[in-house]
């Protein structure tokens, strides 16, 4: 899909939120960028979508969106799931901005649970939707206490969780929302991205913003900031490894989704980043299942019903 712009719906302020709210959110974002990994409280608004559907990410996007921006929205790496399509349409209607599915063309990428495979460059902004921003939440239920632990940099508790993981499973079994230490100071929940994506947050050229609507928190990782996944010296952090390549585009070293093909145990592994997969196929890469894959997965109909 090429970047195209639309006439915005009348009766709404640009990008839905009123200007005072956007100013308030921008102030929170600036503070978050100034203190990498620190959770800044903000007066989260009711959005025309339920909590858990990305109200935090949408508010951050609305606050930073300008008329010249090109927006991409993904959900689990995919551009065409309900959540991604709805949010993309929301901003197309209320802001009239150009939308795209191509990672390289986008200036703002709102995401749920993934970082795009294509390396992001300076000037791009990645906005994460965050359900629970507090990495210590399930270990320490008191908000007063978790704030104190952050303030004093006491993160022993986070290691207790990793210890329990190893004691129970023999290895660190946390595979998503894997805690990271940002800029050598704050421990942060990277939102439920697979730990596969953790190393890619480190030293990223793009700005990373995190919005949690229900929990009313915004935090950020500025460009080229160190992001380290917590681990033990004798149980180092290891991202997931896939033995086979993508069945459609033969890509290796990318995050794959498992797709069940029938009720006899047949399955395939395909790129979770649909845009990345489509681009590879367009440039001639062919996975071993491309010919026989269901039409919806091979890419053809998706191009016809582009939104």
């Amino acid at each position, binding site marked *: 899909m090429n970047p195209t712009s639309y006439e915005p719906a009348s009766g709404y302020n640009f990008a839905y939120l009123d200007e005072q709210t956007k100013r308030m959110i921008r102030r929170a974002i600036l503070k978050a960028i100034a203190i990498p990994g620190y959770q800044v409280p903000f007066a989260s608004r009711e959005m025309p979508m339920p909590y858990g559907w990305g109200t935090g990410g949408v508010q951050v996007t609305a606050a930073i969106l300008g008329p010249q921006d090109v927006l991409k929205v993904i959900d689990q790496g995919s551009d065409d799931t309900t959540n991604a399509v709805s949010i993309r349409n929301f901003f197309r209607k209320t802001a009239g901005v150009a939308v795209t599915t191509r990672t390289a063309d986008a200036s703002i990428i709102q995401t749920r649970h993934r970082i795009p495979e294509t390396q992001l460059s300076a000037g791009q902004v990645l906005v994460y939707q965050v359900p629970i921003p507090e990495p210590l939440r399930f270990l320490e239920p008191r908000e007063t206490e978790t704030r104190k632990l952050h303030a004093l940099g006491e993160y*022993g508790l986070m290691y207790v969780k990793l*210890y329990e993981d190893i004691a129970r499973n023999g290895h660190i079994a946390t595979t998503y929302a894997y805690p990271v230490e940002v800029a050598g100071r704050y421990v942060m929940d990277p939102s439920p991205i697979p730990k596969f994506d953790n190393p890619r947050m480190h030293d990223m050229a793009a700005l990373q913003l995190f919005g949690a609507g229900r929990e009313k928190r915004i935090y950020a990782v500025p460009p080229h900031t160190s992001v380290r996944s917590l681990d033990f010296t*004798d149980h180092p952090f290891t991202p997931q490894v896939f033995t086979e390549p993508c069945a459609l585009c033969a890509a290796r070293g990318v995050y794959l989704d498992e797709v069940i093909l029938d009720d006899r145990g047949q399955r395939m592994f395909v790129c979770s980043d649909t845009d990345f997969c489509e681009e590879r196929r367009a440039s001639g890469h062919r996975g071993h299942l491309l010919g026989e894959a269901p039409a919806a997965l091979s890419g053809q109909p998706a191009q016809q019903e582009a939104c």
Partner: protein
Amino acid sequence: MSGLHDQDEVPLLAVRGLAKYYGARRGCANVSFDLHQGEVLAIVGESGSGKSTLLNLIAAELEPDAGSVAYRLRSGETRDLFGMGEAERRLLFRTDWGFVRQDAAQGLRMGVSAGGNVGERLMMTGARCYGDIRATAGDWLERVEIDPRRIDDGPRQFSGGMRQRLQIARNLVTRPRLVLMDEPTSGLDVSVQARLLDLIRNLVADLGLAVIIVTHDLAVARLLSHRMMVMKGGAVIEEGLTDRVLDDPQHPYSQLLVSSVLAA
């Protein structure tokens, strides 16, 4: 018991004129004492006498209305507890101090395995090698007479006595010099109590711990402590060597307390 110390030595803990009021009601007032390294002090008194208030003041969990608590750090420097920053105080409490609570559920992380409970302080102070943490936790479980094979069991699967012993291991793993104990044996049946007291007595002697133990049980005070303080209505009414206070109480209330112990 070897409670003797050099009189010239600077005390480990010096409490002066400590007072806490809950509105107009007195929690405790004008409490002063010294505690030297390796010394065990028992605070006895009936419910509501202010002994837990006093312990919580010393642990800086309550803000005092008057008075000071000075502690001699490992470096030899003596510092006022309430003059310290919170970060420094918390670091001190999780390295050099321990707090064994009456209710093990408050002193332990109930959702975390025994090994994790014991290892927490190590991880809090920068241990980052899983193998070492686990080995140390196993050693300490053994020292408090918990089968090391139960290292991955949670406190919920432990009996009351085991929970208390686990709490002790969790506190002693960083080799503190001062341990506060709030009724560590109440709520346990008599034989378990005896074993726990025996364990505490040995650990205190082995590690040269200074201990402040709050109890309403005079037998516990007799067994463990070198010195004792009797509290009533928020004030210390009698203080002295444990055997002296128990065998020859001076204050009428102490006499009443000692005489009201049931003989088996």
